[in-house]
């Protein structure tokens, strides 16, 4: 496997960084072992292991001491009030915050054992494996087909492109609606269709993880239902992390839920992780009174 990294199909046990000479780049997370075929045989396997993560924007601290493990093939929801750092945390998982002026991160986020912010990690390669869908649908001003085909083309995945596009659109439950107008502009689609197109675009390059930043908050209830059904069908094939303001949505789709809140430890409130557990536990019998107040709607 001496091809350039971007042309290699994903194997999750590969280091994100280009092969280093010291041989230390490949480190499994604790308690995980890989078989010779590259499959993990210890369940549940942790994809992201966040260790004491704090995030700063300039002098302002946005997030403090987050310890959180995200399991493979599951849907993990991040919930909490506005400004609690849940989107900051999500965007830190694929280095989308790097372009924010003054962004600084402490602690480490291990992805399959590799530090996402390690010295020789290439952020483009990180995002090639960890895809993201944004709050507002953002299709390119190109045809429906070209939107989905764009990333595979630019990553050198040109063989079987038409099949790949069809598979991605079917995967995003959009194929039947658009198969007769693939050459039409994506901007002519409805908001819900555009968002599913963005999901199709993200899964067309077969990422390992999908990060969804409030993917349904700009959509009506019917389109929201379609996106939630879609998440259920993508579960297992992809590890999904979703930020949502909508607690019912988290309860409906997520296997595990993390509750973030603003904590006034010093003089300024800082986002922190309050509780992380199975979704049923978070919404049914939360351990922390702050979680209980929030999920029952008593939060101020």
């Amino acid at each position, binding site marked *: 496997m001496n091809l350039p990294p*971007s042309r290699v199909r994903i194997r999750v046990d590969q280091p994100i960084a280009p092969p280093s000479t010291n041989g230390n780049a490949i480190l499994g997370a604790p308690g995980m072992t890989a078989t010779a075929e590259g499959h993990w045989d210890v369940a549940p396997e942790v994809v992201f292991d966040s260790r004491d993560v704090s995030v700063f924007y300039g002098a302002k601290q946005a997030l403090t001491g987050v310890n959180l493990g995200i399991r493979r093939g599951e849907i993990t929801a991040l919930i909490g009030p506005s400004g609690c750092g849940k989107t900051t945390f999500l965007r830190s998982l*694929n280095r*989308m915050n790097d*372009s924010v*002026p003054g962004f600084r991160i402490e602690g480490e986020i291990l992805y399959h054992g590799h530090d996402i912010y390690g010295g020789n990690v290439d952020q*483009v*390669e*990180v*995002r*090639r*494996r960890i*895809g*993201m*869908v*944004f709050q*507002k649908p*953002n*299709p*390119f*001003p*190109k045809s429906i087909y070209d939107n989905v085909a*764009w*990333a595979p083309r*630019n*990553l050198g995945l040109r063989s079987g492109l038409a099949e790949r596009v069809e598979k991605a659109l079917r995967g995003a439950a959009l194929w039947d609606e658009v198969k007769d107008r693939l050459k039409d502009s994506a*901007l002519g689609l409805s908001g819900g269709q555009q968002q599913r197109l*963005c999901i199709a*675009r*993200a899964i067309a*390059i077969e*990422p390992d993880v999908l990060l969804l930043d409030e993917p349904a908050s700009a959509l009506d209830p019917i389109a929201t239902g379609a996106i939630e059904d879609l998440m259920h069908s993508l579960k297992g094939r992809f590890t999904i992390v979703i930020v949502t303001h909508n607690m019912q949505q988290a309860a409906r789709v997520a296997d595990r839920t993390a509750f973030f809140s603003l904590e006034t430890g010093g003089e300024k409130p800082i986002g922190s992780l309050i509780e992380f557990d199975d979704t049923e536990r978070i919404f049914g019998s939360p351990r922390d009174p702050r979680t209980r107040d929030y999920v029952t709607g008593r939060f101020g």
Partner: protein
Amino acid sequence: MSREAQPVGAGDRPRAYDPAAPLTATGNLRRRQIFSKLTEFAATGAAFAAIAVLVIVVYTVIARGAGAISWDFITKSAPEGVAPALVGSAIIVGIGTLIAAPIGVLIALYLTQYAGGRAAGFVSMTMDVMNGLPAIIVGVFVFTFLVDTNGTVGLGQAGWIGGVALSIIMVPLIARGTQGVLRLIPKSQSEAADALGVARWRTVLSVILPSALGGILTVTILSIARAAGETAPLLLISSNASVDQVSINPFEAMANGPVRIYQLSEEANPAGFSEAWGLSLLFISFILFASLGARAMVARSKRKISS
């Protein structure tokens, strides 16, 4: 109970106005309204004065130049026509565009995609200063470095050197204009591309530039219109040229529109004046149509990006 007798709030002082009075402007408000009307009138007048100047210029050029225009005037060399100047201008401006367009677009990409806030501010300011540079100074600069036989390189007059001088005038126009077009492209577009694990230069080539292409063309046409009329640099760089025959060799001095207009109006020959007006009419028509066409294209590409 009458209105005046009702309580009027804290302190129980009477209001400064009578709420029941008719709602017309009186006293101080009336004076302010009159001043406001005068200001509006002056501003409107200034705007129409500018339009009037353009109309008068265009009318004068048409009135005095239309008579000179004929097929021979456009296609023949001196003394009947001005073909060498038209061809020379096209080649000189073409060379300038070939140099300036790529550099200008790259500067705009740097400003919008790569530069930090401080660097972008500095480069933008430099572009604005360059844009304000008098054309004669650009001319003297290029003359000293490339043309003057006592100078650094000393190549003598040549059409391509005229293109270099015009490119210095065009670069800031193209850079700033393209920057404006690229700013219209929503940040969510490059964010979407970033999140797909595609390298930035591929995003620039296949998402950002295609979206901006119409706008970039427009900006380039506007800068061509501006450069085509620049006289000062070419007087120094490409003025000692034959007007008797068409030349397409950019390595010698080439006749060109602005310099030809200048020469014809300096000649002690009434026929020359009329030719100068005719050539002026050709240039002013080109500039007007290029500008109008370019603006229509801007409107179209804006709709395309934002829809």
